[in-house]
């Protein structure tokens, strides 16, 4: 399986670490809603088809990617930085500099 890292291009899956279901929603840090925490920590979607996943390019640029992978065919229909639009983040950071 090849995953196309937006930085590094198409790379073998061996360079990546699976970091779990990308649909999980982390509750607000101070939330005391145990059901929400429980869902976040333990509940996973298991679709037969397209699945949103988080992969880290741990053997490369180390960025986390949002990957849409078909669990039946392993076809990857999209990859993007988990941080969102990376350029906007980079710009945002540049503006913060004194």
């Amino acid at each position, binding site marked *: 399986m090849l995953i196309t890292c937006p930085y590094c291009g198409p790379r073998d899956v061996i360079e990546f670490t699976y*970091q779990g279901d990308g649909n999980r929603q982390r509750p607000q840090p101070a939330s005391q809603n145990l059901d929400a925490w429980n869902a976040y920590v333990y509940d996973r979607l298991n679709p037969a088809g397209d699945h949103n996943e988080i992969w880290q390019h741990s053997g490369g640029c180390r960025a986390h990617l949002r990957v849409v992978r078909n669990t039946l065919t392993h076809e990857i229909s999209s990859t993007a930085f988990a941080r969102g639009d990376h350029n906007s983040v980079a710009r945002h950071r540049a503006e913060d500099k004194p």
Partner: protein
Amino acid sequence: MSPRRTEAGGRIDRLRTIRFTFDGAPYTGHAGDTLASALLANGVTLFGRSFKYHRPRGLLTASVEEPNALVTVLRGEVREPNIPATMVEIYDGLAAISQNRFPSLAWDISAVNQLGGKLLSAGFYYKTFMGPVIGPLKGTRFWMFCEHFIRRAAGLGKAGTAPDTARYERMNAFCDVLVVGSGPAGLMAARAAADQGARVILAELEPHFGGSANWSGETIDGMPAADWAARAAGQLEGRDNVRLLPRTTVWGYYDGNTLAALERVTDHKETPGKGESRHRYWTIRAKSVVLATGSLERPLVFPGNDRPGVMLAHAAERYAIEYGVLPGDRIGLFTNNDSAYRAALALKKAGAVVVAIIDVRPELSSEMRKLAGETEAEILSGHAVIATEGGKALSGFKVQRFDMVNGALSGDARSIHADCLLMSGGWSPTIHLASQAGAKAEWNEALQAFLPPKPTTQQWIGAGAFTGSFSTAEAIAEGRAAGLSAAGATATPAALPAVEAAPGDPDPAPVFEIKAEGKSFVDFQHDVTADDVRLAHREGFVSVEHLKRYTTLGMATDQGKSSNIPGLAIMAEALGKPIPQVGTTRFRPPFSAVSIGSLAAERFGDLKPERLTPMHDWHVANGATMYSAGLWYRPMIYGHPGETIEQAYVREARGTRESAGIVDVSTLGKIAVQGPDAAEFLDRLYTNMFSTLAVGKARYGLMLREDGLAFDDGTTWRLGQQDFLMTTTTANAGKVMQHLEYFLDVIWPALKVHVTSVTDQWAGAAIGGPKARQILAACVSGTAVDNAALPFMGIVHGEIAGVPVMICRLSFSGEMAFEVYSGAGYGTHVWEALIEAGKPFGLVTYGLEALGTMRIEKGHVTGAEIDGRTTARDLHLDWMLSKKKPFIGSAMMDREGLIAPDRLELVGIVSLDNQPLNGGAHIVEELDEANPHGSLGHITACCYSPALGKYIALALVKGGKARRGTRAYVSDPLRNRFGPVEIVSNHFFDPDGSRMHG
């Protein structure tokens, strides 16, 4: 007479004699021989005993599909079982033994199993050993009781116990076109793709390229086909864009056109070259794949078809033409198709007498009549073989008139004297890789075979016999077209090499079995007979998948390469359904057996990467015994001559507590956490506060996982307002880094924090003990190290021997201690300066054992206690759980199950019988050596404590805190260690910390 070497011919080097042994007896062969061909040339026909009935078995095939002739190859103490003799190339000193026989191959006691044939039919074990419903051996216990004996009687070779010393390696390769198989189709495909400039890899599982060209006896481009193939392979070898992989089996076809292959690099060599690996595991990523894997000949199913001397027609042809070996003198041929006539003629030309050709078909084509005429054999069309004769070797066979429409036998049976019987039941394309790639096989009625369909998601193209095009001329044309297409070029008309071949119709007669009295084998390796298949049907197994599991047909090491289709045909007949409606099983990787060593490859042995601390060479030069921890190597002890490990670590720990000791802590994970939000980030990560930490101070921190269990601990140093240096445990350095990156990237992208792994940038030395401060004072310049300048958890910057260092006063040993960090490149320089400064003060170097001893005495936790199941409370670290802020794990850590009173809690254990304790031993309330039970928990770490003069341990014990001061027992049945202990606080030594605070 028996099989023998021909006077001339074959692609063996008759001038080179090779000496080897089989079952201890010496034999000779020639360079180019396989173990199978060499033994056959020596007249050996008995190669093994069958799996269930212990029937004598000989060679059925000449290649990877061999089900019978499995041997164990010995290399020194190392033994490798279940290798087909057809795949072992002989070398001087080769030692192979036969399998599944006792006391010897020729006289095998368990051969009496044949007499009880009815007993051992399909499902025998399931039916017989489902034990009684009551009693001590009820249910599966009875099976488990019997299994030991059954396994010894039925089976294959025995695995060895000696560690495999061979080296294995893994290679990644990329190419535009991978060609699997190097017969005429594969060679043409490789050449055509290479001509287009594509990067080509050509993999061939045999030692020589050429496939069927090596033994077809055909003529290509006016030269013997074998010469044509050798020339074609030679031309490819010289090209920069072609990589040739002989002895390489492509065994797996995975997603994204990723293929796995096993290259047998040195199995054929007497002594491997220096550094040469035995096997190489190739991961090949190909833009496009040409599958030119050829086809496998099928046996016919008739009584006695497993007797040594009965073999596939093409295999005999191959032994004669490629190896110059005649498998017999008087040869019969039994066939349902035209392809085998060529084999008979080849054996006739090599010097054998072809006594009879038995063809199930009533009429032969004029071409076949002509070929048969050349063999001078008696032609019995419309006949079938109904039995074979002989003991451990074939002496003859019986034939009878046969009607292929209804399968009826008629007329008188007649015996024919022969020492070899060739059989051919048609050909099955080797579609395994295509099937693995997801393609569902399609039945072809004319060819009576499953053909590969069009590829679906994967990028492959088939060529030659693989596609059901069995003639060499077709293979050449299809190979070229496939090569061009795989390289992205369009096929243009071109003059193709001319082929002179024997004529023949590729379509066999639809006959798979001759029903007559006696055992007719379908799966030779698992001893599955045609009656077994029918029995399975009678007992209600109708799905081909169930049939397979119930009879174990096709489940042996050969994975049914020769038995799948005949088995399916017999099942289809029993069901009264056509074969395509019965379906076939899907092939899974591997195509043939793969060495476990090749899969582990670089993870073991001298190819495993090593991480060495900057002071590594110093440790080795100064007598350290190194200990491998993950990829790291760390000093375990610095032993003196004659010391035991315990004596050494006790001396080191005592020396540290009496004067001072120094230990290399460079392996600790170190992460620079920097940025405007660094303090906020650490507050969210750790259970305790870091935003309140003053610059120039360090703090011990604990991290939890999202589920509320403890994750890792370590100190974090505030070097600047926005600049922290986090340390982690050695083992968790990578995991913690990933944890941090995940939260910054995915959960809190708005936090302005950057994390950098700096583990390898810093060298660290921890120096502790009553005289540690004096030693530092003697060698540190540029800063004071007294209590005012360097209080507990304080950080100062200075110099040692001209090198800038950072010193933090913190303690793992419980002594007044300091961690001295310098740039990694100066690690040894600073270390040596500290050693020198420590000499007048009696400074000792200590290793992991003494480090562990002192931490147990102090009751500190490490990975043995933070084991993924313990909470902060279990480890008495609840004082670190801040109530002022949420942190990772804070919401989940108070769940019912995590605060229950009977949780395993950290305690100290003191041995009351003054005997050592063992890690993993259980703690029990009442001792019961005969029937150990009632575990309260287990020991996580243990040592002899010089400070206490006792054997002590840390343990996780149910409700441990409340048990302090009570008696219990250690119960360790594995090591037979039972004895009384006392449960105490985990803080054994200096519980109020007066020594470390000074």
